[in-house]
């Protein structure tokens, strides 16, 4: 099992170019669909948790999934799997090319890659919205977050903190009413 966790995250880490957000749909595919380690809701909670913690999202999510499966050891296996491909490929690239390496080829490839990454993130976003149960009365929450963070550049940390505090306050008020 530990080996399988390691290999799964290693494969996702080794073959996904385009960064952490491009890795999310792949991790979801492996964890929920292929291995059925976790149901969709638990995975989405993990995603929400991963965004609430500082640090790279893909690493945070690996920690969550790994810990759920096999506690500390699972967590170590998942994180190692995610980090190792980066570490190895960067060390190889950095030692092959000189300090003044020409990165035009990388820039060209990335220019084409960017719109594909946008599509890769957009598709599961629609599926997730369906699963969470987005309706007219709660649609404003993700939309507001999207505008505040994506367009106005507010830090997600503030929104997360606000959400947690408001939720606690509301549930406290509701429990007093009953």
């Amino acid at each position: 099992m530990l080996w399988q966790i390691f290999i799964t995250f290693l494969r996702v880490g080794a073959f996904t170019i385009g960064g952490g957000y491009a890795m999310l749909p792949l991790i979801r595919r492996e964890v929920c669909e292929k291995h059925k380690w976790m149901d969709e809701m638990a995975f989405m909670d993990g995603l929400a948790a991963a965004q609430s913690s500082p640090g790279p999202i893909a690493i945070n999510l690996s920690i969550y999934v790994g810990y759920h499966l096999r506690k500390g050891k699972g967590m170590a296996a998942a994180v190692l799997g995610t980090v190792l491909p980066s570490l190895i490929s960067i060390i190889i690239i950095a030692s092959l090319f000189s300090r003044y390496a020409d990165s035009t080829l990388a820039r060209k490839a990335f220019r084409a890659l960017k719109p594909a990454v946008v599509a890769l993130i957009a598709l599961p976003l629609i599926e997730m919205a369906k699963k969470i149960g987005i309706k007219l009365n709660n649609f404003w929450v993700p939309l507001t977050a999207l505008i505040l963070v994506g367009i106005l550049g507010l830090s997600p940390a503030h929104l997360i903190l606000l959400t947690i505090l408001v939720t606690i306050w509301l549930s406290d008020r509701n429990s007093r009413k009953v």
Partner: protein
Amino acid sequence: MFTMFLTFIKIGLFSFGGGYAILAMIQQEVVARHGWLTAAEFADIVAISQMTPGPIAINAATFVGFQRYGILGSILCTFGVILPSLILMAIITVSYIKLSSQAWFKDIFKNLRLLSLGLIGAAMIMIGKDAFPDFFSVVIFLLAFLILWRWKVNPIYLLLGTAAVGMVLG
């Protein structure tokens, strides 16, 4: 080297919102504050980090560490960036498992899920902001969307294929 390790712990601890937020923070610390790299060197590192497998922040941290102190430096910087994650995320996961039956905790996650959707959308906008400079990129987006949606192609093949197309035609 210890200063660098501490700097990357700080970067890992104070960057919310994933890769691009972390890159901005690395730039501020590594280029502006400590002057370990010039802005041009950092721009190259960012370009290569985006095209190398794995999380961009991890790639950039590994690269910066390697440039200064070789393999040991790259391991230290990477470990530094993920150290706060390891501690905080483990705490969050453990409390999630322990508290997930509590009503107030369920409420928090019900709302965080909604928020998370918006944050992923925000990340998409940030990546998408300069992703569509020409007609070519719009075609790639539409083709990629269609391929993923209709034929459920493994995204890995799609990404590798797109990168290859970019190198040839870009």
